[in-house]
């Protein structure tokens, strides 16, 4: 379960891939749902799903952040040069920060009028009320543009992993798949 100097434990690996799939899914779900026509059968269901999954990802991100802080991190493989190591660490940190910004701004859109967020109609996350003027509009802009930035960085991160696997032929990607 725990990380070592050379490998990621199963919890780190599961959280990485689960959150990756959910965040990328949320991005495309959000991108698609904002242009749905009013009479589309998904017009109400898609945003409800988007919000529910968003809250779940937020909970996973909290667990992941706790795990990241309390666990040792495997060392970069010796095939990486100093520049790659610096950039990759920066990218990793950014990919911890940006999801939180996106998730919190999303929360602020839906709760700006005092309404709670229903998670799969099982439980509700209460609103903190309106915290600033035009909250839904400002939070909306942050939610949208930070999501675009995050997807650009996710693409860079994925391309870098593929570069390690196919060009450097090292164990970077395999390590995150638990096969090192």
């Amino acid at each position, binding site marked *: 379960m725990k990380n070592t100097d050379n490998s990621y434990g199963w919890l780190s690996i599961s959280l990485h891939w689960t959150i990756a799939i959910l965040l990328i899914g949320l991005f495309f779900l959000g991108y698609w749902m904002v242009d749905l026509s009013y009479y589309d059968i998904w017009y109400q269901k898609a*945003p409800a799903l988007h919000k529910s999954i968003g809250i779940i990802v937020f909970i996973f991100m909290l667990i992941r952040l706790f795990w990241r802080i309390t666990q040792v991190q495997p060392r970069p493989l010796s095939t990486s040069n100093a520049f790659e190591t610096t950039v990759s660490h920066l990218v990793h940190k950014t990919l911890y920060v940006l999801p939180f910004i996106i998730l919190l701004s999303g929360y602020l859109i839906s*709760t*700006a*009028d005092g309404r709670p967020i229903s998670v799969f109609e099982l439980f509700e996350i209460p609103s903190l009320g309106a915290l600033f003027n035009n909250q*839904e509009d400002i939070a*909306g802009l942050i939610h949208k543009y930070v999501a675009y930035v995050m997807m650009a960085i996710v693409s860079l991160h994925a391309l870098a992993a593929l570069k390690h696997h196919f060009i450097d032929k090292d164990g970077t990607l395999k390590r995150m798949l638990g096969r090192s």
Partner: protein
Amino acid sequence: MKKVLLTALIAGSMIAPLSNAADYVIDTKGAHAFINFKIKHLGYSWLTGRFDKFTGGFSYDASNLAASTVNVKVDTSSFNSNHAERDKHIRGKGFLNVGEFSTATFESTSFKDLGNDKIELKGDLTLHGVTKEITIDAEKIGEGKDPWGGYRAGFSGTTKIGLKEFGMQERLGPASTHVELELHIEGIRQ
């Protein structure tokens, strides 16, 4: 003598048409004025809301109604239908596009007394970058001294505008192509 008479005549002719029209400022400060709207939802019910921020004034003279004028400026980003997600959507590009068209204005062009305090008010409404003449069926509610040393006059009116007429797409279904506006204003005489 002739000169004095002439002067008096000129002075008199300048004063006469002024009558005693008074300028009023719409009391948005004390929130005794409302720009409400309603639109049908799916054709099954009415959805109502309002614009929270606007300023304006009118000039009104009970003895010369036709000379009355009204002008109002609305902050379109103050659209409020008591639902943050819907408000964000309506303020967005598909509808009001408040990023580009942050104000809507109304300038009256004619004020017709129909008797019994009923008024036909025409004017140019600029909304979403489109200017169109609209007709407001208005009514004078009352006027008189207020308890705090001022003088007030109030009116209300209704009109109906089409989303398409003002360059907005009709995306809310066939029953929801028009918005009804309900206006209630109270002015404080300056």
